[in-house]
Structure formats: structure tokens, C-alpha cells
């Protein structure tokens, strides 16, 4: 199953696609008059066969959709190719002694709502296909003298056979609204010239094709060298931040959960306290603590441990170490939280058996605990890794990306790609460019995690415990 070739899969989908198109037209050709009408009036195949609630819901959606498209939808669609044509204008108003401004189009909103309309149309189209299938199916059942499902039955199925549809409904709707639409919007933005010279409300922006990508790959040497250096650092950071936190966190959890250790609740609470304080506070405090003239340096100097301050955050190399170490402080409590529950699930007999074989604690950790944890928490690790690649907060609040360097374009030594991207949007308002880099990071990260996730034992053997 693992080695199912990619091309084979594609072929499979293609045949599936071909078949559904075929059955769509066949259904129409072979359909009786009710089925045929339902190809034009949504829900008719249900209403005419006494599935009133379902049928009218479909009909309602069709009516809504048509009315909406006539009113606004078509306007937004028609604006997508240009992203607006009317620029903000002004006329001298002698009486009021002002240049009265007339409103222009807002390219950003046109793009956003254009995307929404397309997504809506896709959903309605899917519904349309589904209802034709229902009509065909109903016709078939009548011809075979079988009963047609009632609304009550559909509802019952939603809590049993189709339980997944019920419970995934809200998550998916929310994800579409708050993630998918913004995501498509951002992706499209990378193909526009939405920069400081094309800001709404006074200006329009428009499509520029793959221009931004050309710029990122090679136009400016400083640019691409900065991109490369930050990419390398981002990956180094993500690896350290993820795996150090993971291993140390598990060790910590094991120690706390060890048999014979008392006050488990107390120890856990001590660590979780750091989660309770908002990150922007604790990280700001940390940056004050670690400042060249900060508390830690003062203390160390008072106790004569050092005689000159340690540049925790102002030396390029030390700063990198500092942010990783501070991130351990930030991250371990989370690892403890997530792993102690899972640790308790490791079958006790595994440890006992290994003890009989003479394994020491270290061997137990390497050969039992770690593999088990990895098995269960690969997804967590992936989230953490990706989260760290996009770890805006820790870097931005702790070091602000600093110390800044002229060897990097508008960036500092500890800047990650995301914080750099943020700086570019803030300093230059170059949203198009930011989206372009965003997409590049996104492609790298998502390819990586899809591969790891689907190869990981957690997914490969998710039914193992069945």
C-alpha cells in the first residue's frame, strides 16, 4: 500500500472522474421527466417523491444562489479579472472649498469577495451534482419497488452511519471560512502588485503573473542570499527547538511520573505556571533579564562570576543559542503536559519484561519509551516542527530578530523567515512579496510534513491497536 505509485493514483482519480461525468449524463438521458426536471430545478427529484424537507432545502439554496448571483455575485466575478477599474477621484467643490473625493474600487475587497463567490459556487455545484444523484437514485428505487429514505432516516443516519458528516460539519465550515478563504486570498495576492505604491483606498492593484516569484528567485543577490541564510537558520532553529524540547520534556515527564516521587501535582504545576503567564509578558521579561545591562548580567557581575556583561542577545552567535535555550523554557511545559498522559499508557509489562532481561533505565528509555512516544506523537512533533518554523512569537518578542546585520536585507541574525516576512510587510507594505515568500515557506513546510506524516508509523499503523 505504501508503494502505490503516484501515477497510478492519478490514473485512479482520472477514471473516477470520467465515470462520474459519464454517470451524470447517463442519469439525465435515462431519467424520467422528474429526474430530467431535477437537472434544472434543484430538489425536484426529492419533492416530487415526497422527500419534502430535503427537496425544499435544495430548492431554497438554488433560489438563494440565483438571487445572490444576480444581485452581487456576478459583479464580484466580473471584477476578478481586473480587480477594479474605478480609481478614487476628486472634484473641486467651490462652495465648500474642498476637493470632494469620490470613492473608487477596493481591489483587496474585490479579490476577497471574488474568492468567496467562487467558493460558494463550487459548494453549490457540488450540491447540485449530489441532488441529481439523489434524483437518479430515487427513480431507480421506485423502478425496483424499494422504499425511499425518509428525512427521519437521514437524521438517524447522521448519528450513526454518517456520524462523521455530523461531527465534521462545523469544523469544516469554520475551517473554510477562517482558513480556506483567507488562504486562497493570500495565494492569489502573490500574483498581484499589492505593494506600497498600490494601496487601497486610493489605488488599485492588479494581476502581474509570476513576476513576484521571478523577483524572489534571483533578481537581487542580497535578497536571495538573505533568503537562503534565513532559511538555513530557520531550519536549524526548528530542529533544535523541536527536538530539544521534545526529548527534554519527555525526560522531565518521566521523572515526574516516576514511581515513588511524591508531590507530582506540585511539580507539574510549577512547570505549568510558565504557560499561565502570557508569552508576550514572559518573553518581554526574559529580554529584560538577558539584556546587556539586564538583571541576569547585574547578578552575575555582583557575584563576581563575570566581570564584563555577556551579550546574550546582542552577539550573533550567543543570541542564537539564547533564543533556543529560552525556547526550551517556553516549550518544555507543553511537552510535559502532552506526554505525561501518553506515558501512562505504555503497557507496564513492557518495562517489566525488559527489567528481567537486565535493561537499565537508559536502555528502557531508548528502546521502549522513545519508540512508543515517537509512534504516538509523530503528529505532535510535526506540528511542533512546523510551529517552530513559523514561530513568530518567541523570536519577535524575545530578540525582535536582532542583532540586526547589514549582511542581511532588512533582517537580523535571529530572524526567522516569518519574522522577516512580517518586517517586510510592516516596513514596505509589500503584501504581494510577503505572500510570495509565504507561499514558498508554505510549500516547503507542507510537502515535508505531508511526507513525514503519511510515512510515520502513527499513520501507517493507525489501526494497529484495533
Amino acid at each position, binding site marked *: 500500500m505504501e508503494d502505490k505509485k503516484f501515477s497510478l493514483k492519478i490514473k485512479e482519480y482520472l477514471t473516477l472522474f470520467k465515470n462520474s461525468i459519464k454517470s451524470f449524463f447517463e442519469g439525465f438521458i435515462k431519467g424520467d421527466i422528474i429526474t430530467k426536471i431535477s437537472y434544472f430545478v434543484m430538489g425536484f427529484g426529492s419533492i416530487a417523491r415526497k422527500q419534502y424537507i430535503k427537496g425544499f432545502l435544495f430548492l431554497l439554496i438554488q433560489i438563494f444562489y440565483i438571487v445572490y448571483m444576480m444581485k452581487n455575485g456576478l459583479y464580484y466575478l466580473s471584477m476578478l479579472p481586473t480587480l477594479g477599474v474605478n480609481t478614487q477621484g476628486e472634484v473641486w467643490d467651490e462652495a465648500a472649498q474642498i476637493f470632494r473625493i469620490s470613492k473608487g474600487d477596493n481591489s483587496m475587497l474585490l479579490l476577497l469577495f471574488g474568492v468567496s463567490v467562487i467558493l460558494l459556487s463550487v459548494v453549490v455545484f457540488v450540491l447540485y451534482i449530489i441532488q441529481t444523484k439523489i434524483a437518479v437514485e430515487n427513480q431507480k428505487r421506485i423502478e425496483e419497488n424499494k422504499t425511499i429514505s425518509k428525512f427521519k432516516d437521514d437524521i438517524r443516519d447522521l448519528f450513526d452511519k454518517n456520524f462523521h458528516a455530523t461531527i465534521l460539519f462545523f469544523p469544516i465550515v469554520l475551517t473554510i471560512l477562517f482558513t480556506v478563504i483567507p488562504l486562497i486570498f493570500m495565494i492569489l495576492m502573490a500574483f498581484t502588485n499589492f505593494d506600497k505604491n498600490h494601496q487601497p483606498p486610493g489605488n488599485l492593484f492588479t494581476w502581474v503573473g509570476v513576476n513576484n516569484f521571478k523577483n524572489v528567485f534571483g533578481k537581487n543577490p542580497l535578497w536571495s542570499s538573505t533568503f537562503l541564510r534565513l532559511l538555513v537558520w530557520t531550519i536549524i532553529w526548528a530542529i533544535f527547538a523541536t527536538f530539544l524540547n521534545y526529548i527534554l520534556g519527555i525526560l522531565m515527564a518521566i521523572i515526574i511520573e516516576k514511581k515513588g516521587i511524591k508531590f507530582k501535582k506540585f511539580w507539574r504545576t510549577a512547570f505549568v505556571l510558565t504557560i499561565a503567564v502570557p508569552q508576550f509578558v514572559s518573553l518581554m521579561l526574559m529580554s529584560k533579564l538577558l539584556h546587556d545591562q539586564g538583571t541576569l548580567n547585574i547578578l552575575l557581575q555582583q557575584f563576581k562570576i563575570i566581570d564584563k556583561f555577556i551579550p546574550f542577545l546582542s552577539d550573533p552567535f550567543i543570541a542564537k543559542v539564547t533564543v533556543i535555550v529560552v525556547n526550551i523554557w517556553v516549550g518544555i511545559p507543553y511537552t510535559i503536559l502532552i506526554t505525561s498522559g501518553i506515558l501512562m499508557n505504555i503497557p507496564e509489562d513492557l518495562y517489566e519484561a525488559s527489567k528481567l532481561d537486565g535493561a537499565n533505565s537508559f536502555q528502557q528509555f531508548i528502546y521502549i519509551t522513545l519508540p512508543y512516544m515517537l509512534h504516538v506523537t509523530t503528529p505532535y512533533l510535526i506540528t511542533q516542527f512546523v510551529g517552530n518554523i*513559523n514561530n513568530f512569537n518567541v523570536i519577535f518578542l524575545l530578540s525582535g530578530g536582532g542583532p540586526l546585520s547589514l549582511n542581511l536585507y532588512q533582517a537580523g541574525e535571529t530572524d526567522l523567515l516569518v519574522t522577516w516576512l512580517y518586517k517586510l510587510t510592516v516596513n514596505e507594505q509589500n503584501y504581494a512579496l510577503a505572500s510570495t515568500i509565504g507561499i514558498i515557506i508554505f510549500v516547503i513546510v507542507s510537502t515535508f510534513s505531508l511526507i513525514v506524516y503519511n510515512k510515520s508509523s502513527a499513520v501507517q499503523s493507525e489501526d494497529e491497536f484495533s
Partner: protein
Amino acid sequence: MKKSTILNAITYLFLSITSFIWVLPIVWLIMQSLRGEPGAFTSYVIPKIWTFDNYIKLFTETKLFNFPRWFLNTLFVAVFTCIISTIIVLLTSYAFSRLRFKMRKPLMNVILVLGMFPGFMSMVAIYHILKAFGLTQSLISLILVYSGGAAMGYYIAKGFFDTIPRSIDEAAIIDGATKNQVFWKITLPMSKPIIVYTILTSFIAPWVDFIFVSVIMKDNYQNYTVALGLYQMITRENITAYFTQFCAGAVVIAIPITILFIIMQKYYVTGVTAGGAKG
């Protein structure tokens, strides 16, 4: 016997030192919040004047910084976000872990990938979507935003559900339970640690985020959350006068989260497989 005593002693020592390191910045924060001298920074560590004034001012001088109001706003948002996102995460991960349906794998992959786009890039788009619903500047919109992305965090809980033996579900289904009942009566009670984790992380989000709030609330000062409110205290103009109050505010934020965790702790104790069908 003796060896284990020494080992335990070492363990306690180690735990004491590490937890000390972890708590140290918090102790410092608390000290700052009790500092009587003004200013954002002192060149000494221990405050010279100890006082509760910063806390008292935080709750009484509400003209500039309406902390009590923001605190209640945040509590409201946090409680609902917590409930909604916990439900969403658990349902999503249960569906992916336990139910088998067409499109399961593709859907899992799509949702996994969706979570990888840097969040702040989509803020302005989200703002305009909320505006289209007429929801901006309201606390409800905050709840929606914080719980809207919850589904994308399914895989941690899914990994956990995967470890619960399926045979238990199957036994129940043979006994005539629907999948709905299996979820509520069997899976959930066995998933306490992951529920605690989910509840805790989703409860925390509204207390610590200051970026989304500022985009959504804009000029509606009354509907700020504590994080954004506190952030106003450390602007260039305010930091000298308000830094100690800012620290006090941070301590106050930490209280509900800590309490929640201490309450949740008791659900943390027992493992899953111990009582499962495997044994």
C-alpha cells in the same frame, strides 16, 4: 532499598533545581508587580518598597486602562472558546481516528496542510470576512476566530485516540450502541489527559493573543481583552508609569489559568490502557 533512596534524593534535588529555574522569571514578575518604586526597570533585583498598590490601582483606576472590564471580556471569550474548540478538536480527531469514510485520508491531509500557513498573513482577510457577517468589534467574533482554527489541531488528539483499543468500541457496537453513544460514553471518558491538554491550550489562547484582537477590535476600547489592554501599558509613553501595573496584570492573568490547571489535574492521574480491554 538504599540505592533507590539515594536515587530519589537526587531526583528531588534535580526537580527542585529545574522547577526553580522555571519559576524564577515568574517570581521576578511577581516581585516587579509588588514593587513600590516607579519605572520600567531597576538596576537592582529586590524591590526596595513592597506594596499591593499596583494590584489595587489595576482594579480601581479604570479611566485609562479598564482592566476589570477587559478581564471579564477575556474570561467570557476564553470560556466559550475553550468549550467550542475542545468539542471541535475532539469531534474532528474522533472522526479521523475512529470512523472510516470516503475522503478520510485526503481530508486529513488537507486539514493538516491548512494549519501550516502563517496565521498573521490571513488576519486582514479574516477581519473582512467577519465584517461581512457584521461581527467585527464583538466578543463573539473573537470566539469564532479563536475556535475557528481548532480543527487543524486534530492530529495530537487523534494520535491519542489511536492508542485506545478499538476492540472496546466494537464490543459496544455489538451491544447495540450507536457511534454517537460510543463517542460520548466510551471514548471520551478514556481520553482525559488529552482533553485536559486541549481545554488548557484553548483556554489560554484568548489570554495571550494581542495581534488578532487588535485587528478585530480596532478602536473599540471597551471590548479589548487583557492581553491587548496590557500591551497598551508598555508603549513608549506609558511604560515608565505603568510597568509595575503591567506586571501585576500579568500575574492576575496567570491566576485563572493556574486554577484551571489545578482543577484539571485530578483527571490527569489515571492512564488509559490500564483499565482497557487489553489487560
